[in-house]
């Protein structure tokens, strides 16, 4: 089932002066349960594409439909609510809240959603177990390794039971072992729970694990390959 439909997507910066076409007419569809790598050299528009897909930015043309809802028709506040309910984010720099423990970072998202305390505690415990760091629940991010922090970030992204997870270069700051562990966790979650992952990356290890690889260049899709 298609959960994301993108039609003729455009994002142009400095429209009035010298226009820069960061995204230049992309048409794509993502199915539920996909494990997709979006590959592009630096500056080719993959972060911009991810920002548009995640509702962090508004397109200047075209449309994005997620679960039947047009993202480009939503206000900034509505996009924020939509992100909270339906999209999970994993960032390159982990981006955890430094003053909260691992468990609190996960619970924070659920609190924003209005999930009751008991349910939040149970789910954060369950998620930390799923990413293999249940023993680090009460540790703050600053005392965790890069790999552990990224696992907390994955658990946080899953906390809101999103439709899909957008991961922007999630392995860029990790060593090979941590990368391998993280990818295994995400692959398992994808296979077991049918969670859709879309990675923006140029890490060959991620590309190798992905079942679909989309290549961007100059804001356009130049190849879209589904592995068998």
């Amino acid at each position: 089932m298609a959960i994301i439909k993108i039609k003729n997507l455009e994002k142009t910066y400095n429209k009035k002066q010298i226009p820069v076409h960061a995204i230049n007419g992309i048409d794509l569809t993502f199915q539920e349960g996909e494990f997709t790598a979006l590959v592009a050299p630096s500056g080719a528009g993959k972060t911009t594409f991810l920002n548009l897909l995640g509702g962090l930015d508004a397109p200047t043309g075209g449309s994005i439909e997620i679960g039947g809802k047009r993202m480009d028709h939503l206000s900034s506040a509505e996009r924020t609510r939509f992100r909270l309910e339906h999209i999970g984010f994993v960032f390159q720099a982990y981006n955890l809240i430094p003053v909260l423990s691992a468990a609190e970072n996960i619970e924070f998202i659920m609190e924003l959603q209005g999930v009751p305390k008991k349910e939040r505690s149970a789910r954060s415990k369950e998620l930390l177990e799923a990413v293999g760091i249940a023993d680090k629940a009460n540790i703050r991010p600053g005392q965790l390794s890069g790999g552990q922090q990224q696992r907390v970030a994955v658990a946080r992204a899953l906390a809101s039971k999103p439709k899909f997870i957008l991961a922007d270069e999630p392995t860029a700051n990790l060593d090979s072992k941590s990368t391998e562990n993280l990818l295994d966790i995400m692959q398992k979650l994808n296979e077991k729970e049918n969670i859709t992952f879309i990675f923006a990356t140029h890490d060959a290890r991620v590309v190798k694990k992905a079942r679909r690889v989309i290549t961007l260049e100059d804001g356009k899709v130049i190849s879209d390959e589904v592995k068998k």
Partner: protein
Amino acid sequence: MILKIAWRNIWRNPIRSWIVIMALTVGMYAGVFSTTFMHGWMMQRLRAGIETETSHIQVHLPGFKMAEDVKSYFTNSSQLVHEIENIEGVEAASERVVISAMVASAEKASGIKVIGVDPGKDTLVVNVNKQMFDGSWFKGVKRNPIVIGYKLAQELKLKVRSKVILRFQDSQGDFSGGAFRVAGIFKTLNTGFDEGNLFVQNSDLRSLITISNDSAHEIVIRCDDPTMVDKVVGKVTAKAQGLEVESWMEISPELGYLTETMNLYMYVFVIIILIALGFGIVNTMLMVVLERVHELGMLMAVGMRKGQVFIMILLETLMLSALGGFVGIVLGIVTTQLTAKTGIDLSMWAEGLSEMGFASIIYPEYNLQMVIGVSVLVIFTGVLAAVYPAYKALKLNPSQALQSI
């Protein structure tokens, strides 16, 4: 959780937070202590003014206060005093004969207000008798005793048992006078009062100005409860037909305005301190927001509404301000309580202060209304100081904020 994040965020840079807290603590401590100090000082003056000089309520013939004419006396004064004493809320009342006179010693002469009192009853209303510097309140001198102020005694070079001559106009308009002997010398907080007033016995003065023993120029009244003065004024007015009944606020409005003016002045002082501190808080919180642009972008990216980000910054500022403010206010109150017992000695300036009617040992007084007012101002400053940094956070675009370092 937002409250928890805001609280923990404060302690991410403890040195910076402590500097702001300390600045607020010192500012608020200074504000609160100055307020209680000034309030205590003014209240001392107010109490001294009422308890020594004016009493709570005075009764006269209309217009007497303007001219203090010897002929402006009323009769049946003893009966009226008796009736007033029976009014609920009146602790004591005493009649007085009041004239303007010239007082002369062997050395010098001076213009003066002569107050004829019933030595026993008057002490139930005002407390000049408790402020004797030398001699006693009408004791030790058999004929025509007089009690004078310290300053006047110095000017006229008088001592206890010295002879003094009073000259004045009697009720018939004739020139009159008499010789008196000093029974006591009083010294109040107000040099002006000591210099301009002296006390004789009602009976002596009545015969000299040729008015009956049942006549008086003034009745002074002390109330059970100083806060009920206005109610008692109403009741006395009903009894004292044709007479003017005034509370101490009307007799000496400067005393009433003293505390109000000082409170206003102290509010202005505290507001100035808070404005200066407010700029410091704005600066700190602006740094906090600018340092955390990336993190704020992340919070918005994962679903935190802009309003919640705004509230988080507001809470951080408020907690920072409230903490510093609270510590300062508590320290101010503690210092007030400590010095309220020992007093603060300003004897170095005793002469000048006494000339203005002020005490030289100040007992700071805690004023709950003022402390609440200052606390509200601290919170208000915190909110106001948070608005601009929080607005800056509100204006962030999550995608751009995430790209900042």
